[in-house]
């Protein structure tokens, strides 16, 4: 069983909010992804489909449609920099370059030690505090400059060595 009984319970607890079980699909995928290191292992898909009483292909369709769902492993820290217009006007491109240099990877790649993955993302609603980075689909680091990147990477490495993986 790829789906733990605890996860099955958490997902099932969402059913009463909706007239159809299918409506829980996005929430269920978020729950699974948070418990699985920030990505969705393949073997969980048929089990989710069975739990929600929907065809397996419907689960795959949703996974591939939404940018927050990862069908491949991501780094322990999944870093996404907004490169939409307001962030680019405030230097987002230089921030992406600084991450590329600090981590020696390109957007879409993961560091060899599995610690970091890098990506570009569309507008995060942080235009007044641009440029913005989102770490693990959770916290925002706003008003970034290329000079902040080294310290940020060091802080995350330190955090990783002292705590267990934070929720994605």
């Amino acid at each position: 069983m790829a789906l733990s009984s605890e996860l099955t319970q958490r997902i099932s607890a969402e059913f009463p909010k909706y007239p159809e079980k299918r409506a829980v699909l996005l929430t269920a995928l978020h729950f699974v992804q948070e418990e699985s290191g920030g990505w969705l292992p393949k073997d969980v898909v048929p089990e989710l489909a069975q739990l929600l009483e929907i065809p397996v292909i419907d689960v795959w369709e949703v996974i591939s449609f939404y940018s927050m769902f990862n069908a491949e492993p991501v780094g322990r820290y999944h870093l996404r920099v907004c490169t939409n217009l307001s962030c680019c006007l405030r230097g987002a491109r230089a921030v992406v370059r600084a991450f590329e240099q600090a981590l020696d990877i390109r957007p879409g790649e993961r560091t060899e030690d599995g610690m970091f993955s890098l990506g570009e993302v569309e507008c995060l609603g942080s235009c007044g505090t641009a440029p913005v980075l989102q770490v693990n689909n959770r916290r925002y680091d706003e008003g970034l400059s290329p000079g902040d990147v080294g310290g940020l990477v060091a802080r995350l490495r330190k955090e990783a060595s002292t705590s267990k993986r934070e929720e994605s």
Partner: protein
Amino acid sequence: MPELRLLLPPVGENWSRIADYRAHGGYGAAERALREMTPEAIVELVKSSRLRGRGGAGFPTGMKWGFLPKDRQRPRYIACNADESEPGTFKDRQILERNPHKLIEGLLIAAWANTIDAAYVYMRGEYRGPFENLGAAVAEAYAAGYLGKNVLGTGLDFDVYLHRGAGAYICGEETGLLESLEGRKGQPRKRPPFPAISGLWRRPTIVNNVETMSHVPHIVANGAEWFKQIGVEKSTGTTIFGVSGDVVRPGTYELPLGTPLRELIFEYAGGIPEGRALKAVIPGGVSMPVLTAEQAMQVDMSHDALVAAGSMLGTGGIVVLDERQCMVRAALAIARFFRHESCGQCTQCREGTGWLHKLMVSLEAGTGTPADLKTIDEVTRFMDGHTICALSDAAAWGSGWFLRRFRQEFEDHVTHRGCPLAATSFEV
């Protein structure tokens, strides 16, 4: 001039906890509405306030509520749009982070007015902090008896559920949102039927933006006449403008609709850094046609004034570009966004957004030809008005109007075989 804050608490304050919200009169309007007003009277009040939707389209809110079937057969739903993802827009986030009970009170009044069983707040997945903040406020509202069974002893049973999206701009489109909430890809539905007749699970549903709903409590508290005195005739009340890009003080400013764009940029947002000149302004999120500096300096931020100037109010998300910036790069960033976000359902949009992006990249790389400029014009015309939803129109306007209003600069990219502003412009 200070801001006029109806939606947001004063600078530095946060009324997320119910005690703070109630200390400032919170839930007074809901108590009055549920105890003293008939549902019909509330719908009439919202109609006469001339409140218009704050999610981008500006549709009259009371009229939308009026489209629900008169038989009031249940269940009926609210789908509250908290999928804020129009680039340049960051206003609903302010309400969700700093005054979430305002939204809950608006939902409660709307539920009473429209005989609603449950509201689903569909929030973009990236808004994790706002999701948790609103969730805590909803729990407080249940504990205080404003949500749940028999609210305030009126016999109303009303639930508010929070629902997370997962990163798709199209889910902010009202029927894309409904599809996504039901657990599918967010591909918009054909209309008719409209959501008021057949929405969530084919039941009558009203879809309203976070800010729109948050205006309802103070309209009930102070009356339609009071609300109409704020703003201008066909654009009443305040809105939360967002200013980003090349300004000294980017951020949100809550002001009456009809505030001059020049005041927003040069007074509230502090003007352009180092006294540089204004070049272009997108007045309402990147879907809306760009304005030249000359147009921007003369226009007021109301629905009518912006239409007259050849753009639209949209979400009120203002993006400012100064004299250093390349207009092709701006159009490229916008085209790239829409290419990424097209749901792929309609051919004009799926293909057109890709074409626009490729053509902009080619111009910027110095491989563009005069024929390419003609192609951009043609592609945008095929995209506009021919698809199931407005994403294709927005993509066509968003980059197409850069070409129409800054044509010389596009032609210069062809003749110079590259970007003539590469030395000064932002990187895309």
